[in-house]
């Protein structure tokens, strides 16, 4: 009797699946094809980076290579001091992440855990600040950094500090807004309990709250890292003459030449520039999506 009652729905379901299958198979084939097309430029970049020069400067490009080589990477590191630029990029993005982590966390705590006059005004200002097209500020920032340079050379034109300053400022509004949602999600009872246990406000903030909002901090860090790492406009504007302080995006463009572009080196450089971001993205993709969704929902 049990078997009878069980078989009826299964066959029904199976029939339904069979009926549905052709459509779904088509959809799945399409999905895989689309994925291949979307991933293709990245594959091509990686492939070209490992191709010998003769196969790149060829009117008959093939989507594979039988003689992979590191000569493009070698050229990138010797002709153009890529290791230095890689470290420069890493330094700028790293400092931006660490500083904005602390600064935006403090601001988010103040905006959610404290009651004071003008709080709403501040919140609206931070929301508006997110919409400011920072690219439009290039000209005044150029002059600002020029004057800063005469006081504190490290933060002036031609120095990495100027890039740190602008990317820190640009990443803060969104970071604060995003973290606010995460801090607000921590129940107030937790703070009361911690206070009853004798934890000071300072201790509660750093030892309880900070770890609890870790997912938000991760998402926020990744976004500020990527912003600073990918920046082209400000690096191009601020680092005018000090080639030793260039960052990766500019270093790659050196291989575009009027006499003929060195595509092998360009692709090798682009690969080196893409890998850290890609690794970051894949590692934290879950946090990233939930972090952005959390911020968007706010």
């Amino acid at each position, binding site marked *: 009797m049990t078997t009878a009652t069980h078989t009826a729905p299964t066959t029904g379901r199976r029939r339904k699946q069979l009926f549905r299958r052709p459509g779904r198979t088509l*959809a*799945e084939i399409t999905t*895989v094809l*689309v*994925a291949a097309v*979307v*991933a293709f*430029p*990245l594959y*091509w970049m990686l492939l070209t980076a490992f191709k010998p020069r003769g196969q*790149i400067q*060829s009117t*008959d*490009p093939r*989507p594979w290579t039988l003689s992979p080589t590191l000569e493009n990477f070698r050229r990138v590191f010797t002709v153009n001091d890529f290791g230095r630029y890689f470290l420069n990029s890493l330094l700028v993005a790293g400092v931006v992440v660490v500083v904005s982590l602390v*600064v*935006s966390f*403090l*601001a988010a*705590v103040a*905006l959610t855990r*404290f009651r*004071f*006059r003008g709080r709403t005004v501040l919140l609206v200002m931070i*929301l*508006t600040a997110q*919409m*400011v*097209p920072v*690219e*439009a500020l290039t*000209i*005044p920032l*150029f002059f*600002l950094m020029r004057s800063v340079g005469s006081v504190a050379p490290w933060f002036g034109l031609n120095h990495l500090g100027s890039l740190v*300053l*602008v990317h820190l*400022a*640009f990443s*803060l509004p969104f970071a604060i807004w995003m973290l606010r949602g995460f801090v607000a999600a921590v129940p107030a009872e937790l703070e009361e309990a911690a206070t009853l246990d*004798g934890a000071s406000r300072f201790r509660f903030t750093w030892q309880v709250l900070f770890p609890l909002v870790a997912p938000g901090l991760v998402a926020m860090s990744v976004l500020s890292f990527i912003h600073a790492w*990918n920046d*082209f*406009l400000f690096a191009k*504007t601020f680092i005018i003459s000090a080639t030793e302080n260039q960052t990766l*995006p500019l270093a*790659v*463009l050196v291989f575009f030449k009027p006499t003929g572009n060195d*595509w092998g080196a*360009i*692709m090798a450089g*682009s690969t080196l*520039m*893409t890998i850290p971001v*890609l690794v970051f993205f*894949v590692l934290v*993709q879950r946090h990233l*999506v939930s972090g952005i*969704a959390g911020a*968007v929902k706010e």
Partner: protein
Amino acid sequence: MTAQSTLAPQRDGAPEPSGRSVRRRRAHRGQARIAALYLAPAGIVLVSVMAYPLYQLVQLSLYEYGQAQASGGAPLEFLGLGNYTRLLNDPRFWMVLLNTCGFAAVCVAGSLAVGITLAVLASRVRQLPRALLFLAALGAWATPAVAGSTVWLFLFDQDFGLVNEVLTGIGLTGMEGFSWTYDRFVAFALVAGEVIWCSFPFVMVTMYAGIKAIPEEMVEAASLDGASTWRTARSVLLPMLRPLLVIATIQSIIWDFKIFTQIYVMTDGGGVAGQNLVLNVYAYQEAFAGSNYGLGSAIGVVMTALLLLITVIYLRVQRGTGENA
């Protein structure tokens, strides 16, 4: 040690029963001070590197500010709205504005169309193909703008590009040695392709999350009531996805309106005779290539004002959908 420190304040607080409300009042007053302390670092940075430059941008746009003034060799000359009238009377500015709007519109429409289609597709397939699609999209999303631009340029290169080779191979012999950056519209299309490639993933991920959040029962109920697939999509799914759709749209508009890197790298600073200039690149070229810092600032102000307008619409719409939800 922790036990000691947790006990101490309780023992202190115990003898005075009325101390609690006093402490609370004092805490309220102290709160503002601590809050100010916590907000200070962010405030200092934002005021000096964002608010002040924004003020300076407007100020610069009211002056004649060229190479001579920038190096301190000539006195500042106040023009009032001179830079703006110069802009409005310059046919080039109108062309650039049109370029910017048209280019942004194509990029936004493209990212939304591709992103939404793929989100729907992803919600209909099993996990493996979906994971492949998301991985590929994540890769495109993560690629730095400069790297994405160079790869697309190489794929569409006149002499060594794969695309021309394939197109010639399938019989389009006219495509041999075809330059994708020479014609104004072809060049824009190429850049738009790259921009859509790296910005559709955001739309896709957002919309996919939205679709997944719709309870299956609602779709089932609709179909039980005899609603067609189209009708279900229009009357059940679309209203539920609307808030996310608005966010994705506005976010894309804001991004695509102020694109700099892709245009700059792919069309080599604005294309043949500046045919591919957009506002951002135009402002940069006027200021740093032409040493017209005042005029460049005026362009920046125009762009900021346009984006502010979009932002106001965005906030209004978002508040509207918030009330409905």
